[in-house]
């Protein structure tokens, strides 16, 4: 089969599945779930075929074609650009997506709106696929927005909860703020290059470096700020945990939030070194910030959300650090700069272990009857052994324990950061990222210790049981992937142009990393055990340093600042403007004019006194005035 046809299938399968569910299966929940998983399976099969076989063929459909300014053509089209990079991202999407769908079968078993959930999942898969395969900026943007929509729907799954409603709204609007820049960036690109096509753009950017601009790159990066939840647009991601946990695993950990990283890697050639510098700092700051804030969270999913933020910060920082790296790229369609490659590498491993952690948390939450406060859990290690083990693997992976997947990817990022000062970069980034790695080990260990050890701190935790096979199976698969996902042999030659661009640490630095990884992960657990004694009922930090904990729990007041802005500035401005509109435009301008005319109306009305004597004067004055006008006096 030709690739073109396969691409079409790929796009159509989730779409049709979503369509069928929306139209016919709204009430038939199990059928809907079955259909969704089935379509997911077929989707995966086709996807894997595409990834590993790479059949020949292209897909390109023109949406519209107009003539743009200065003889340029303005073509918006739908097309596929399939290269190693997109293949890698597709792999992540397929693997995590399918596992999450299977997991959801168990997790959402008794949900009254199962059909909507699975329909939403299908839509999301479709939209995400669009981002992954798009061959031009406009199409990316379109699917970018659609992904946001899917995320909105899924976060809003429990729509009777005001917090869920608010969170979904927040997610969408904050993403739109990012898209504001993204859209401008696309327009900017068009104005400079006269095309949206990625291949053409890459070519032109390669030959005409002078056409690039830092502003353009940063505008495009605005979209990433939103979607990948970087400072200062990170606020939506922790709130997005209001959605069902499988969603958090798929969308808000593994794929959608990573789409920003993927996109930046995809348009890496449009980024100037100056833009990358900014990007690097954004990532670094986000990584550190989120790691700190994670200590203030008691909700198991919130901790994971901040850890996601932190890891995304790593990836973004890696992208930025690329500006100080020597490109190792060779072969493939287009050499991928090492920054992008490293970021993609971490993206992949992170997708595995973070999805694992989230699904674990889902398993726990399900077992604890939707209890999410870790201080209401405890002692689960015995009750849920498989979950416990897989969680431990995830924990070690994210902590950078040597020879697990996280170790390799984080290692390469730190390596880049370490190398950066040799190419004129700041040394500070390295230290921040290293510190953040240590913090990561610690807060994850806190989560681990408090959740699994000690004794059950609530009724719900008391009765927790291991989850069923539909949920356990994905956990095991992901645990395996988290272990092996960092090795070159795992990727093989399929993603040549990405993997080959990844610089690997050697020699002393590698040793240092192994030591650091071990210390951070295992040491973290020990330290966490000491600090957050699982037998205590309350958080140690909270009792020891209440103000610090409060600040961290409040996410260092960034959200409060936004709320303050929305409530005190934006809404008030809207009200004031509305009032002014009523006052000046409807009132003064419209009614005022009407009033003035009406006033003259009353005056002229009062001239008709009904008295002949008065009327005669009118005549006299009339004749006089006419004469005056005629003879030019008036």
């Amino acid at each position: 089969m030709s690739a073109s046809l396969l691409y079409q299938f790929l796009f159509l399968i989730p779409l049709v599945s979503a369509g069928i569910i929306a139209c016919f299966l709204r009430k038939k929940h199990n059928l809907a779930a079955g259909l969704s998983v089935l379509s997911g399976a077929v989707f995966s099969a086709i996807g894997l075929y595409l990834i590993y076989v790479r059949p020949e063929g292209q897909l390109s459909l023109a949406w519209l074609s107009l003539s743009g300014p200065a003889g340029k053509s303005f073509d918006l089209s739908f097309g596929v650009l399939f290269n190693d990079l997109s293949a890698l991202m597709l792999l992540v999407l397929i693997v995590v997506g399918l596992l999450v769908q299977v997991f959801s079968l168990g997790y959402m078993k008794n949900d009254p709106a199962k059909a909507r959930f699975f329909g939403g999942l299908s839509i999301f898969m479709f939209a995400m696929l669009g981002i992954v395969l798009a061959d031009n900026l406009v199409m990316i943007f379109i699917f970018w927005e659609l992904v946001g929509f899917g995320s909105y729907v899924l976060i809003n799954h429990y729509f009777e909860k005001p917090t869920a409603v608010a969170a979904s709204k927040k997610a969408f609007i904050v993403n739109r703020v990012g898209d504001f820049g993204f859209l401008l960036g696309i327009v900017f690109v068009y104005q400079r290059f006269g095309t949206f096509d990625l291949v053409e753009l890459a070519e032109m950017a390669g030959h005409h470096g002078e056409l690039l601009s830092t502003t353009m790159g940063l505008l495009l990066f605005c979209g990433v700020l939103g979607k990948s939840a970087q400072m200062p647009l990170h606020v939506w991601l922790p709130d997005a945990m209001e959605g069902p946990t499988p969603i958090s695993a798929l969308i808000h950990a593994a794929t959608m939030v990573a789409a920003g990283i993927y996109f930046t890697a995809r348009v890496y050639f449009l980024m100037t070194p100056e833009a990358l510098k900014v990007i690097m700092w954004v990532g670094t700051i986000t990584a550190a910030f989120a790691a700190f804030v994670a200590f203030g969270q008691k909700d198991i999913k919130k901790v994971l959300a901040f850890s996601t933020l932190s890891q995304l910060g790593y990836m973004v920082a890696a992208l930025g650090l690329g500006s100080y790296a020597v490109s190792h790229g060779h072969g493939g369609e287009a050499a991928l700069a090492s920054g992008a490659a490293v970021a993609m590498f971490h993206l992949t491993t992170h997708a595995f272990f973070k999805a694992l952690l989230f699904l674990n948390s889902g398993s726990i939450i399900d077992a604890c009857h939707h209890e999410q406060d870790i201080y209401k859990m405890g002692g689960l290690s015995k009750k849920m052994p498989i979950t416990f083990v897989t969680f431990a693997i995830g924990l070690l992976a994210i902590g950078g324990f040597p020879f697990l997947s996280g170790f390799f990817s984080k290692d390469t990022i730190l390596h880049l950061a370490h190398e950066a000062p040799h190419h004129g970069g700041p040394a500070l980034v390295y230290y921040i990222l290293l510190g953040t790695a240590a913090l990561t080990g610690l807060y994850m260990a806190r989560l681990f210790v408090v959740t699994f050890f000690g004794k059950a701190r609530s009724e719900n935790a008391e009765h927790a049981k291991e989850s069923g096979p539909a949920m356990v199976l994905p956990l095991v698969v992901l645990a395996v992937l988290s272990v092996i996902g960092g090795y070159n042999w795992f990727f093989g030659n399929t993603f040549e142009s990405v993997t080959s661009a990844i610089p690997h640490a050697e020699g002393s630095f590698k040793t240092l990393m192994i030591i650091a990884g071990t210390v951070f992960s295992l040491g973290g657990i020990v330290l966490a055990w000491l600090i957050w004694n699982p037998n205590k009922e309350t958080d140690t930090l909270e009792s020891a340093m209440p103000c610090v904990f409060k600040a961290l729990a409040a996410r260092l007041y960034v959200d409060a600042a936004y709320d303050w802005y929305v409530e005190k500035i934006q809404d008030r401005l809207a009200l004031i403007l509305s009032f002014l509109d009523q006052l000046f435009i409807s009132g003064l301008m419209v009614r005022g004019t009407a009033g003035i005319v009406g006033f003259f109306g009353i005056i002229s009305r009062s001239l008709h006194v009904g008295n002949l004597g008065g009327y005669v004067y009118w005549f006299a004055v009339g004749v006089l005035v006419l004469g005056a006008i005629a003879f030019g006096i008036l």
Partner: protein
Amino acid sequence: MSNYSILLLSTILVPLLVAIVLLAAGRLPKGVTQFLATLGFFFPALGGLILWRGFQPVDATGYDYLTSLPTGLEGLGITLKLGLNGLSMPLFFMAGVVGLAAGIYAMQSRAERMQQYLMLLLFMQAGLMGVFASVDIFFFYFFHELALIPTFICIGVWGGRDRSSAAMEMTIYLTLGAMLSLIGLLAIYFQSGAESFDMISLKAAVANAPITGEWQNIIFGLLMFGFGILVSLFPFHSWAPRGYASAPTSVAMLHAGVLKKFGLYGFIQVAVPLVPAGAIHWQGLLAGLGLAGVIVIGLITIAQRDLKEMVGLSSVMHMGYCFLGVACVSVLGAAGVVITMVAHGLTVALLFLLGHVVYRRTDTYDMDDMGGLVKKTPALAAIFSAAVFASIGLPGPGMLNFFGEFTIFAALWEYSRLITAGAVLGVIISAIYGLRAIARIFFGPPSEALEKHLAENSVKDITTAEKIPTLILLVTMVVIGLFPRLMTDDMQRSLDANFQSIHSGIEQLAFEEEESEQELASISHPHRQ
């Protein structure tokens, strides 16, 4: 006269005749009324579809189906000349579709004296079709005004609260706009020297000898404010939210969806091609007002509690984008405007319709008195959300809206980056009010008022009857959104024809001005012509 031309004419005549029958026939049985009205509403939509399918402009003017009929005003260069070009075709079709949806929905409404209501709507419908089918700018204006009286009476008789003063304000405002544009059109007629109101001859005449610069500025100024008022340009918008809030749903759909597009269509089809130098002269102001419309009105929309007023204001805001597109004075901008017009027409009609469907279930338009409706009406919530997402330009349901806005942004960047940035801000603003509205109506816990209402009344999900007009609009929107080339290819050709003369015209004008200045300098005293 070919069969297609007859079809084109009858898309206007059939609703008109049905209206006259309903008017003259006295009280008819309900079934007969409904049958006739369905015919009157269905015919234009079907005709629009057939005409679009067969659309094949051959000559350079970009028009197809040209036909003219005598009127008695030939002495003034006025003939009833009908035809469609790439710009009017999609709008014509859109008018038919929105009319169909509005008509079907009107038949379901619980309006008293249904026959009169449908009769007036059919008059409006005839006017709508006529506006976009006219090649003669006199009739273009004439058909628009045809709908003024029906609109007024419909609002007054079948409207909601505050209808009396709202109808008055709207009518006076619209008349002001119409009068200004009438003078502008007359000025074009006199200054072009074409001795005809025929758009094709006018364009030809202007291409040969452009209107003098001073007159261009005056004419465009007149048209800008005239059309602008009709389209609710920023400081002249106050009639729109009020009027729509009190109008009966079908009237709001027809007016906000289609009739309002008259002004913008006039900009693209008449004003900019015929007086390009004037357009460039006023560009800055128009862009400024358009931008103010997007941002200020957008923010005001956020503050609304009344669902209908919110939709009305959002439509004013979207018109801001269109003005920005016009202000670009470029093919791309104009194309964006036409796409946005089609998209917005369908979307806003859908929103007004769904707004009323919600109203039927809550008995209020106040969004603070709603909430949590989704439990009772999941399908309605889904469709409503789709409509709102379309309106805020989310690709998918609102693909066409997105394409339109995006095209405008791309064109606008050429003109001014700062203004583009401001305009794109609207993307955020519209997301804020759109999502808030969905959340306030459907999600979260129900408000006290709604709970009380729900306890007393049984509330059902959207009915099949209500779904029909909804789906007509939604499906049209999505299909055109997925295949915008259906319209853009023909549009491109017509726009090229329209804009072809612009640049040369402006150049020629600049040259002549230079010459006349030299002449003036050589003659010691200026004199009147």
